[in-house]
């Protein structure tokens, strides 16, 4: 054990304020874009650029400190708790959208269709509307027009296999790391990243297919809304996870981790398992049921 025995409290850092400014610019820029102001896009672009610089700088600092053995086991545990609760917050973020899907399917659509408490609603406001998931799930006004559902057994099923496999490969890499087999580590990680990217690629293909062939759009009523918000945020998270893994891969190649100290690897792996589990939820509730 070469790490410090002291709790590391950095002296001061300008990265947080840089991050705040970046987010501020990004969000003000995006707001301006939504309100059709011309300065929106450049402002948002600049914000995102600064945000990237901030992430490089901040994480770079942490990596350097870690490599300089500034962190002890206690610091390591702080990072672990931090990552764990961050992932929990992400779970709750997805819970809001799963909740919306659940609510729409169990309550609002049936009510509009006249079930339960919805008899009067259906009779006076939406006569003739029959709630059928998914075919009628763009609501009584057919918002977004006729669409076809995204089947579960094509790309989604393949994607399920891909993500499940990637969960295995990342664990395999972890074993390699713990056993100090660098080749396994790097190859395992490489496979994981590759699978992740294939997943994202297939997802993008699926979106194009949905828009061009199925007329399934974000605007296709509650079905399109829940479908794209859930899969979209998931895809975003897969992308983030893949970027994390790419960084970890680079650091592994640079020889950063040791068999008993590699929190960053584990954090990325946890995150990856989290997107994996969310996907299983999506596969069941969005595509299959």
């Amino acid at each position, binding site marked *: 054990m070469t790490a410090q025995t002291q*709790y590391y409290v950095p002296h001061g850092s*300008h990265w947080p304020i840089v991050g705040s400014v970046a987010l501020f610019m990004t969000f003000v820029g995006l707001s301006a874009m939504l309100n059709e102001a011309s300065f929106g896009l450049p402002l948002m672009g600049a914000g995102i650029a600064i945000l990237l610089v901030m992430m490089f700088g901040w994480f770079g600092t942490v990596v350097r400190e870690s490599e300089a053995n500034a962190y002890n086991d206690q610091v390591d545990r702080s990072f672990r708790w931090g990552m764990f609760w961050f992932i929990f917050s992400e779970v709750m973020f997805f819970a809001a959208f799963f909740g919306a899907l659940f609510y729409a399917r169990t309550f609002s659509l049936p009510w509009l269709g006249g079930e339960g408490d919805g008899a009067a609603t259906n009779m006076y406001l939406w006569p003739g509307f029959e709630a059928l998931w998914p075919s009628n799930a763009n609501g009584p006004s057919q918002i977004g027009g006729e669409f076809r559902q995204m089947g579960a057994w094509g790309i989604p099923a393949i994607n399920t296999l891909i993500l499940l496999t990637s969960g295995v490969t990342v664990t395999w890499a972890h074993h390699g790391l713990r056993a100090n087999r660098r080749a396994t580590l790097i190859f395992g990680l490489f496979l994981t990243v590759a699978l992740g990217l294939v997943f994202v690629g297939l997802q993008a293909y699926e979106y194009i297919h949905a828009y061009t062939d199925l007329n399934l759009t974000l605007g296709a*009523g509650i079905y399109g809304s829940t479908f794209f918000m859930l899969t979209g945020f998931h895809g975003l998270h897969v992308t983030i996870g893949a970027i994390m893994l790419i960084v970890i891969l680079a650091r592994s190649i640079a020889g950063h981790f040791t068999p008993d100290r590699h929190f960053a690897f584990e954090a990325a792996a946890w995150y990856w398992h989290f997107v994996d589990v969310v996907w299983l939820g999506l596969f069941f509730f969005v595509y299959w049921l």
Partner: protein
Amino acid sequence: MSAVMVDDHHHDGPDSGIKRWICTTNHKDIGTLYLWFAMIMFFLGGLMALVVRAELFQPGLQFVDPQFFNSMTTMHALLMIFGVVMPAFTGLANWLIPMMVGGTDMALPRLNNWSFWLLPFAFTMLLATLFVPGGAPAGGWTLYPPLTLQTGAALPLLIFAIHLMGMSSIMGAINVIATILNMRAPGMTLMKMPMFVWTWLITAYLLIAVMPVLAGGVTMLLTDKYFGTSFFNAAGGGDPVMFQHIFWFFGHPEVYILILPSFGVISMILPTFARKPLFGYNSMVYATASIAFLSFVVWAHHMFTVGMPLAAQLFFMLSTMLIAVPTGVKVFNWVATMWRGSMTFETPMLFAIGFIVLFTIGGFSGLMLAIVPADYQYHDTYFVVAHFHYVLVPGSIFAIMAAVYYWLPKWTGHLYNETLGKWHFWLSTIFVNLTFFPMHFTGLAGMPRRIPDYALQFTDYNMLASIGAFGFGLAQLLFLYIVVATVRGGERATDRVWDGADGLEWTLPSPPPYHTFTTPPQIR
């Protein structure tokens, strides 16, 4: 394992100048920033409340346009909740938790800085909405669609501001949890932690669980408005009520986020001035946990009139009523703590006692609101406004003030002026009741909330409330003065400050050195 402070710049004090505050990773500096931020927002949010109260002083439209009135109500609430109470508690957590558990600092110091420094930007965005075309948000802090979707250019700014506040709260909460779970001195077992630490641990859990849900909900608002989704649109198969469920799944735990740390503060102050240990420590911990647990299953008591099925109404009524049990346990334990003590009544104690009485009154009206048939009459009237101001103003705000008086000598090394402190307490207490007690009556008599003008029979009580509000506001200027004066000088405080005080923070010098507990204390 000894955990000694390491400092990469090889000096032990703060940076000089503005950099000290912008780049700081020190929990005390960050705590100070949070507290001052909350103070500023309190005056801004209060000013908005005064606009409301001025317009409501008498019937008729006198000062503001109804739309602007609604903006004031909305912004007032957003500022007070997200800009005052939550940051103030996080400030207290920053200052106190590391000292109370015998840790070096917060577990994740740089993240800590970011948690704070997101806030000024978030609130700049929020306040900027006052100046955009279409005006500031005016749909109420509850942001119900479809009305909120009628907001003009302010909508995305509002939503992104809420995202930033949410990020800030979540990161702050993660830091608190990591600190409590990981930075305790050897021997500081969970069941030895001061109550304030316990309540914050549970609050932090609530925060991490519900802030992301709010973020998700407002994101759906954004996409409904700008990207054609139909979450809250019946024509597309959605439901405006769905937003209410999402909002209150966040919103109800949120109100406990706004009160649990107060419970912690009160549980610290009472034993000191009663010179007697806290009664029923274990049951306090369990009660706090039960409140937190129950808070996840009561949310729809805010929506009894939306037309839920009978079974749902019954479920939410009964679960809501249940919360009175653990809350009662807390109140009874506090009374038992005072019972046969040896009490003195310095300002923090006065505020604590005021808290217990007035919070309980607010709790009672809460219980009345939980009774569905009666809530049909109470809902969206000033009776509700009275309820929540009783739990929030003489509740959360009083607890925060009690905490400031209690720990200010520790933080600054100076004693505040006790006479002025007592004046502040009595003025606040009288005026807070003058402001909010009459609202029970106007509400029962049928005055809806969120209206800029009212029928003649409500006039008397509205006048009283407005006078009270201005009086209460003026009294807070005294508070500002006392705090500033104490920061700048005054009689030197001893290390223990209060002769009945117990806990690790009182073993440190007043003011404590920039870095404390670089060698962890041993707890018996």
